[in-house]
């Protein structure tokens, strides 16, 4: 079962939830898809790390063959190509690696070359396989890294927890595409509600079963909670605004490994998700 954890903005508690969930239900797989700022590894401190480079294909020109016909420039709908006089120009940050320009070139002057955009690191931490995607600074899209993270072989019988990037852009869509269930993490503020609505819209669009974890709950109004009740969204758990959590978390410690009540909370969360996602019977009958 693949469970994706998302929120409309950074700092809401995606990593807290996904790291603890993966740790509580080990053996499991933790995928850090927040490739611009991966931080799950700071908690897991995985051992025996293996690295794999991630590359994409971009076009290159053979100037002796190019006759400046502009077929490629006119084809590229991302406008990654320009022709200044007879000089061919590529804006590789904008190139989506579709390969169309290379295929269409009447002079066969274009060919594809590999460009490195980042890497994937895989390690283990007390029964959790930790896979982290790293996008090199300055690269525009982490989507190829996310695809590679998912493409790697993982133990089929182990649950997979996907720590998504913040927001609701392309890169988040790629992170939840394969998910069986989505956990939306929300803060108890109006801004938190705004961010919750963004990801809620996304999971509805993808028709994913989903539920909300209300994080940093304090006494008083909780607009995110009101929204869930009004929309009939399952509230999976409410995590209090608690100094102990804050302190352990900022020291890179995993609550579920240190405090029994949190181990219990995240185990219960997994159980609840399996029930609502209809996983219970299928998984249990295998035992």
């Amino acid at each position, binding site marked *: 079962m693949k469970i994706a954890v998302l929120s409309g903005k950074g700092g809401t508690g995606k990593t807290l939830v996904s790291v603890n969930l993966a740790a509580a239900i080990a053996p499991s797989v933790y995928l850090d898809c927040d490739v611009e700022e991966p931080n799950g590894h700071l908690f897991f401190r995985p051992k025996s790390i293996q690295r794999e480079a991630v590359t994409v294909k971009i076009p290159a020109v053979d100037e002796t063959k190019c006759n400046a016909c502009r077929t490629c420039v006119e084809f*590229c709908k*991302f*406008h990654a190509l320009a022709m200044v006089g007879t000089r061919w*120009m590529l804006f590789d940050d904008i190139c989506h690696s579709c390969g169309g320009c290379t295929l269409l070139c009447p002079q066969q002057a274009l060919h594809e070359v590999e460009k490195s955009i980042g890497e994937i690191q895989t390690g283990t931490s007390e029964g959790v396989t930790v896979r982290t995607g790293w996008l090199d600074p300055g690269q525009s899209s982490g989507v190829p890294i996310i695809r590679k993270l998912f493409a790697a072989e993982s133990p089929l019988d182990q649950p997979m927890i996907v720590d998504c990037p913040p927001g609701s852009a392309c890169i988040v869509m790629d992170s939840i595409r394969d998910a069986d269930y989505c956990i939306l993490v929300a803060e108890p503020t109006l801004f938190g509600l705004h961010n919750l609505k963004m990801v809620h819209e996304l999971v509805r669009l993808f028709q994913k079963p989903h539920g909300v974890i209300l994080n940093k709950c304090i006494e008083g109004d909780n607009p995110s909670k009101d929204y869930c009740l009004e929309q009939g969204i399952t509230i999976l758990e409410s995590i209090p605004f608690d100094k102990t959590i804050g302190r352990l978390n900022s020291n890179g410690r995993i609550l579920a490994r240190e405090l029994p009540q949190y181990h219990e909370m995240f185990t219960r969360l997994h159980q609840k998700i399996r029930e609502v996602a209809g996983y219970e019977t299928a998984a249990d009958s295998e035992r």
Partner: protein
Amino acid sequence: MKIAIPADEQKMEGNVCISFGRTPYYLIFDTEAGTGTFMVNEAAQSQGGAGIKAAQAVVDSGAQVLLTPRCGENAAKVLNGANVRIHRSIEGSLTENIEAFKAGQLPLLEEIHPGYHGH
């Protein structure tokens, strides 16, 4: 010499558009003939790479000078590649900018911004 200017409207007394890549029109003004033509900026509607596409159109128009309040990095690469000089425009009409340029009052645009790209 031909001068390109991003334009809000298709009239000489109209204003310079604040955006280079997303401007609705370009004025291509021929200083020798003293006449100009307006060209629709087809890049304005594109999702990404508007600056590159717009710069390509300006280069293709044969303009040697661009008057604009701002310009992104990618567009500047295309324009520089074609030796199009980029001068900073002033607030006011297209006509006023052409006059100011002729009088040598418009300095080269120094700040090239990294662009407003988003995925």
